């Protein structure tokens, strides 16, 4: 008897029930993060305003991905897809900015 196809594990979907407190905790964290980001933007933090806003937004996004989107319980392949997309996006940013940030370095 042939065993099941290469490439998939379970006969039925894997069910991992995330406890309520995690969902509510993430919700609370996201709300706090929103308040923080508004407050930080009203303060004059010099060159740190932008990085702080980015960091808070990134943390919020990571929480949503890990817990609301269940990435923390997902397959390695899912992780590869997530990481690869951001890596590719990052590449696009980095190499494009390599042009813009070096345009004023002309010797002549």
């Amino acid at each position: 008897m042939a065993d099941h196809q290469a490439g998939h594990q379970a006969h039925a979907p894997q069910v991992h029930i995330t406890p309520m407190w995690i969902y509510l905790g993430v919700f609370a964290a996201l709300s706090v993060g929103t308040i923080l980001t508004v407050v930080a933007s009203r303060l004059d933090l010099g060159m740190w305003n932008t990085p702080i806003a980015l960091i808070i937004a990134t943390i919020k996004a990571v929480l949503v991905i890990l817990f609301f989107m269940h990435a923390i319980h997902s397959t390695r392949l899912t992780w590869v897809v997530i990481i690869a997309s951001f890596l590719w996006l990052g590449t696009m940013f980095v190499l494009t900015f390599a042009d813009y940030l070096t345009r004023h370095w002309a010797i002549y």
Partner: protein
Amino acid sequence: MTTATPTLLDVRFGPGVRNYLNEDYGFFSWVLTKDHKRIAILYLISVSIMFVLGGFFAMMMRLELLTPEGDLLTSDTYNKFFTLHGVVMIFFFLIPVIPAVIGNFMLPIMLGAKDLAFPKLNLLSWYLYMIAALVGLVVIITGGVDTGWTFYTPFSTQYSNTHVFGTTFAGFIAGFSSILTGLNFIVTTHRMRAPGLTWYRLPLMVWALYATSIVILLATPVLAITLVMLMLERTIGVGIFDPALGGDPILYQHMFWFYSHPAVYIMILPAMGVASEVVAAFTRKKIFGYRFVAYSSLAIAFLGFLVWAHHMFVAGISMYSAMIFAFLSFFVAVPSAIKVFNWTATLYRASVSWQTPMMYILGFIGLFTIGGVTGLFLAALGLDIHVTDTYFVVAHFHYVMVGGTVMAYLAGIHYWWPKMTGRMYPEWWARLAALLVFVGFNLTFFPQFVLGYLGMPRRYHAYAPEFQVLNVLSTAGASVLAVGYVLPILYLVWSLKFGRPAGPNPWGAVGLEWTTTSPPPKENFHETPEVTWDAYDYPAMMKAMGETQNV
């Protein structure tokens, strides 16, 4: 089971032989099909029509270029023709052709699956292609577009009086067709392989289509957003590339080429997959360095994303980023070269069978190498300044796209024709056509390397008189090439009714597709296959099958 009354299809394929072609009849059974094989045939027909359309524009251009004066077409019309030649050939032929025709048909069978993961999305993909093609046709009929297939701003956004919106909208829709195909292929390859079919037992065609699908998934959306921004600017009059607002036209080029460079790997990777299949089948050997060839597909997919601004060396990017991109562009040649070395090593001391698919692939290997190497010429900053926007570039990309992708596609069509249709094509005519294609192609495009080096610019309908001889040679070659392309259309259609019926494995090749009937049944296999052999494992396959060749 056959229907009670024998029909023409039954007569062709023999009574009692139920397959995906005679499974069901009628227009709606095709247009509403979810069978990946039928969708592949639908694509085959549409893509072929678009190829002829793109070829028409090319013929007109080459006719104009017989004489140095612009005497056949006005400059505006010529601009429209080279634009439409590019748009049609790239978005409606080269990008979809091998994945949508050969990939759609063969991928599930090569994986031992009944269909792709999402048959309805597959059909949607074809519908989107057809809608995009229809929009494109309307654009052509109502006046065309003259910006070049690259739609550079601000000409495309502010100054062109042609159908920029329509064309970019068609491209936008075609992009989604492509994305759905890529998504389907990735999921199917990961989740629907037959028992025993581990990654390293997969045919190299599957690796190639998988790598292509990754590129499709990650590159095409950037084109989509770029075209959306372009369309917005055309409609509301201001946009993010508008210099009057402080916008940067070069930003458009960065975003455009972020897709359009990986796009060329979408075009060539599947062709390389076909090459591996055909080389293995017609040398009856395992591909030398299987894992290197497999990994090189992934490497090309990855590295291909790091080089896009080599299309922009003279556009106004910083000198330093130009150096970075030039350096990276040299790297991307390495995995391609690895493939060429491995195919060559497979051919070494092999008993080569000179049938039509092999003729095309041998041509492919040589012509792709020339095209690839001239890409290195262009990657070299100093040389690029001299030849950019000349016919040197035109020759380079035609060598890889036509000498490469189109020849590999023709190889694949001939190789898998018996499987898809249950018929053999006429070998003598096919070899003649292959020869005409090879000779015609080189006569068309080799002079263009010289022309470019001598300084003839591209996208001009008039040129300096000293370039005429080479242009005449090129046009003569194009005529021969055209004959070479028309012949397969004729004899392949002929073979549907009069070709010799083919058995399950006319080439005696190793592969899951050769274990099922020609044409396959709707569900591909009567029983789910279980794979216990390596790819191209001829000795093991002989033992399992008990026979060598079945024509």
